[in-house]
C-alpha cells in the first residue's frame, strides 16, 4: 500500500490514473443508465427534475474531466511514453506523483456530488448566469474540481513535453518516434496553452457567485457571452486532447497487429497531428453558432471548422492505409481498433453539418449534436482506450485476459453503442432538444428513446463483462510472455512483462534505421 501511495514510478502512477479513470467511468456510466431510464416514457419517471439535472451534470463532467482526458493522457501517456522512447522514467517523477494525486482529489471532490446538500446541477459547461446567480446548487464543487484536474493536467503537460524532448534513447530521432508519442505531444501542447483559460473562466464564475463580482452580470456591465467564449476556447481544443491520443493508440494497435508501418508517417505527424493542434484552436465559435455573436464571426469559424476535415482526413487515411498489405491478427484490442474506423467516420462526418452555420441553426442543442459528440469524442475515444487497455494488458500485468470473453464483450459493446445512439440522430434532426427531463411536446419520440435505453443496458452488460475479464485476467490469467503480439516497439522488445523499476534491464540505444515499425 505504502509503495503505491508514495510511488514516483511512471508505471504505477499510470495505473493509479487508470483506477481513477475507470472509477469515474463506472459512476458516470451508472448516471447514464439513470438518465436513459428517466427518458423511457414521456412524463416524470424514476428521477425528480433536480436529480436528473445532477445526474446529467455528473455524467458530463466526470466522463470528460475524470475519464476521457485523464484516461487518454494521464494513464496512457504515463504508462507508455517513457518506455516507447526508451527512458527509465519521466523528467520529473515527483511532480508526476503530485499530478496523479491532484487528479485523485479532483475525482473525490466530484464524487462528493452525491453527498453534499444542493449538489451542482449546472451541466459540465456551467453556463452563466445560471451557474453564478440562479442555481441553488453548490457550483464551487464544480469549479474546484476543474481547478484540481486542470492543475494536474498542466503539471503533466510540462512533465511529458520535457520527457519527450530530453529523455529519448540515444540515437532516437524525431521521425523514429512512435506515432502515439507525437499525438501525446500534440495533446499536451493544447493542454498547456488552453487549460489556464478554462481555469480563468470558472474562477470568474466562482468570484461572481460567492464574492459579488460582476464579470458576467449584464446589469453591472458584465457579459454572459464572455464566459461562453472563454469556456469553449479551451473546451473545443479539449476534444482534440481526447481524440489525438485516441488516434495515436489506434495507430499503435493497428500497426502492431498488422505488422505494418504507419502509412505516410511524416504527413500524418506534421500535417495530421500538428494540423489539428493548429486549426483546432481557431474553431471554438461553432459551439456558439446560435449565441447571437456577430454573423461574420460565425461565418469565419464555419470555414475554419470545415477545414479541420483536412488534417483529420489525413489521420484517417493513415489509419486505414496502415492496414494495406498488412498481416492482420484479430486480438480483442484489434477488434476495438477496427471498429473505430467505422465509429470515427460516423462521428466525424456527422460533425460536418454542425460546422455549417445554416444547418446548425436547426441542429444546435438537439440530440443530433449529442449523438455526434458521443460518437466522436465519447465512443471512439473510449473504444480506443479500451482497445489500448486490452492491447497493453499483457505488458501491464504480465498475464493474459480471456480472448473469448473479450470478443463477446466487444461485440455486445459495438451493438450497444449503435443501438443507443443511431436512433438519437434521427429524433435529433426531427428537433428533440438535449438535456430534457421530459419530452411532453414530442410524444412521437418515445419509441426511439426506448430503443436507446435498451442499447444503454446492452452497453452496461458489455462493460460489466469487460471489467470481469480484466480483473480475472490480472489475478488469474496465464503468463503472457514478454512480447505476445510480436511488436517492434521498445516497450515490447526491450522491457519485461510487467517491466521492473527503471523499465529496461539494459538501457536501449537505437540505430539510425530503427523505427518502432520495422517488421
Amino acid at each position, binding site marked *: 500500500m505504502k509503495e503505491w501511495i508514495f510511488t514516483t514510478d511512471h508505471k504505477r502512477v499510470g495505473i493509479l490514473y487508470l483506477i481513477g479513470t475507470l472509477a469515474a467511468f463506472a459512476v458516470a456510466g451508472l448516471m447514464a443508465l439513470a438518465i436513459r431510464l428517466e427518458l423511457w416514457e414521456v*412524463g*416524470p419517471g424514476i428521477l*425528480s427534475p433536480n436529480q436528473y*439535472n445532477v445526474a446529467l451534470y455528473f455524467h458530463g463532467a466526470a466522463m470528460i474531466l475524470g475519464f476521457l482526458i485523464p484516461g487518454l493522457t494521464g494513464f496512457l501517456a504515463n504508462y507508455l511514453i517513457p518506455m516507447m522512447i526508451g527512458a527509465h522514467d519521466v523528467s520529473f517523477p515527483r511532480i508526476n506523483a503530485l499530478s496523479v494525486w491532484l487528479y485523485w482529489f479532483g475525482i473525490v471532490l466530484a464524487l462528493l456530488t452525491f453527498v453534499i446538500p444542493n449538489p451542482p446541477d449546472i*451541466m459540465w459547461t456551467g*453556463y452563466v448566469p*445560471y451557474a453564478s446567480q*440562479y*442555481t441553488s446548487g453548490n457550483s464551487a464543487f464544480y469549479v474546484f474540481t476543474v481547478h484540481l484536474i486542470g492543475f494536474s493536467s498542466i503539471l503533466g503537460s510540462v512533465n511529458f513535453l520535457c520527457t519527450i524532448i530530453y529523455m529519448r534513447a540515444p540515437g532516437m530521432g524525431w521521425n523514429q518516434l512512435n506515432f502515439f508519442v507525437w499525438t501525446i505531444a500534440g495533446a499536451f501542447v493544447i493542454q498547456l496553452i488552453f487549460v489556464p483559460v478554462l481555469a480563468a473562466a470558472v474562477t470568474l464564475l466562482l468570484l461572481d457567485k460567492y464574492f459579488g463580482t460582476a464579470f458576467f452580470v*449584464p446589469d453591472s456591465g*458584465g*457579459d*454572459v*457571452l464572455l464566459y461562453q467564449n472563454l469556456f469553449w476556447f479551451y473546451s473545443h481544443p479539449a476534444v482534440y486532447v481526447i481524440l489525438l491520443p485516441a488516434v495515436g493508440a489506434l495507430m499503435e494497435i493497428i500497426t502492431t497487429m*498488422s*505488422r*505494418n*508501418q504507419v502509412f*505516410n508517417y*511524416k504527413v500524418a505527424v506534421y*500535417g495530421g497531428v500538428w494540423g489539428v493542434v493548429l486549426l483546432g484552436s481557431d474553431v471554438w465559435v461553432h459551439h456558439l453558432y*446560435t*449565441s*447571437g455573436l456577430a454573423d461574420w464571426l460565425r*461565418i469565419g469559424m*464555419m470555414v475554419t471548422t*470545415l*477545414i479541420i476535415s*483536412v488534417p483529420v482526413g*489525413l489521420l484517417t*487515411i493513415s489509419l*486505414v*492505409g496502415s*492496414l494495406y*498489405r*498488412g*498481416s*492482420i*491478427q484479430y486480438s480483442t484490442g484489434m477488434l476495438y481498433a*477496427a471498429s473505430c*474506423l*467505422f465509429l470515427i*467516420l*460516423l462521428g466525424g*462526418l456527422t460533425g*460536418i*453539418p454542425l*460546422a*455549417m*452555420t*445554416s*444547418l446548425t*441553426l*436547426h441542429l444546435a*442543442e438537439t440530440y443530433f449534436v449529442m449523438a455526434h459528440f458521443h460518437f466522436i469524442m465519447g465512443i471512439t475515444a473510449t473504444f480506443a482506450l479500451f482497445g489500448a487497455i486490452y492491447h497493453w494488458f499483457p505488458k501491464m500485468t504480465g498475464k493474459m485476459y480471456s480472448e473469448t470473453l473479450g470478443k463477446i464483450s466487444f461485440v455486445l459493446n459495438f451493438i450497444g453503442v449503435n443501438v443507443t445512439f443511431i436512433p438519437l440522430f434521427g429524433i435529433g434532426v426531427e*428537433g428533440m432538444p438535449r438535456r430534457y427531463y*421530459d419530452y*411532453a411536446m*414530442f410524444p412521437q419520440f418515445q419509441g426511439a428513446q426506448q430503443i436507446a435505453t435498451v442499447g444503454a443496458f446492452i452497453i452496461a452488460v458489455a462493460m460489466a463483462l469487460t471489467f470481469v475479464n480484466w480483473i480475472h485476467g490480472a489475478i488469474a490469467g496465464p503468463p503472457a510472455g514478454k512480447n505476445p503480439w510480436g511488436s517492434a516497439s521498445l516497450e515490447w522488445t526491450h522491457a519485461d512483462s510487467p517491466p521492473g523499476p527503471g523499465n529496461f534491464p539494459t538501457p536501449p540505444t537505437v540505430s539510425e534505421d530503427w523505427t518502432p515499425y520495422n*517488421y
Partner: protein
Amino acid sequence: MRIKAFSVMAGAVAMLAFAFPGEALALNDHTPEWDKVWMHLLIDVGVIGAIFLVVSIYFLLSYTRKSEGEVGKLKQMSFGNSLAWALIPAFIFMADDFYLAAQGWNLWNSQRRVPEGAYEIQVTGRMWGWDFAYPNGAMSSSDVEYDETGLVTGIDGDGLVVAQGTPVVLRMSSADVVHSFFIPDFRIKEDLMPGRITYLWFNPKDAGEHVYTCTEFCGLDHSRMYGKVKILPQPEFDAWLASKSEE
C-alpha cells in the same frame, strides 16, 4: 504530373462552388431550402463515408494473417508519393469544404436577412415561460402547467400568435438566464440572454400550429418551457390582437 492534374481539378471544383451562390436567395420560407441543403450534405458525406468504409472493410477482410511468421508488406513511400497522398486528399477535402461552405452561406444569408416590412414581436424568455409583446402593446405568453406528480396537464396562455402570410421578426432577450428559442418546423433557433438582444425571422405561410421550445439549459423546468406558434388567417389574427389589446 498526377499531382498537378488533381490540383487543377480540385481548384475547378472549388471555383464552381463559389460560382453558384451568385444571386442571393430570396427565400420566404427556410424549411424547404434547409431540407435541400441537408439532403446535399447527406449525399456528400455519405459518399465520403462509403468510400472510406468500403476500403476499410476490404483491407480488414483481405489482409488477415496467413502464417505465423508473416509480416506486413507496406513499403516506405517515395517523397513524391508521400506528397501526393498529402496534397491530393487535402485538395479534395478543401474543395468539398468550400462547396459546402458556399451552400451553407447562401442559406445563412437568407436566414439572417430580415425582409422589409416584417412584423416585429418582442420575445422575453424567463424561468420557465415565454412572454410576447406585440407592436400595439398587446401581450401574450405561455407557461406549461403540470400536476403535483409532475405530469404535464396543459399550457396556460395563447403562446406566439402570428398572422398568416406576413414575415415575422422576433427581437429576443432574457429576464434571467440564457434560454434559446427553437421552432423545429421552421428550422430556426437563437439564444436569448440578459443584456443582449438577438433576432430570428420566419415566414408563416400556412395556417396551423407548430411547437416552439427552449433549447439552452436553464434549470429545473428547462424541458417544460414550450408552447405553440399559432398561425391564424389575417382577419382572425386581427380579432385576436384586438381582444388582447383590451385586456
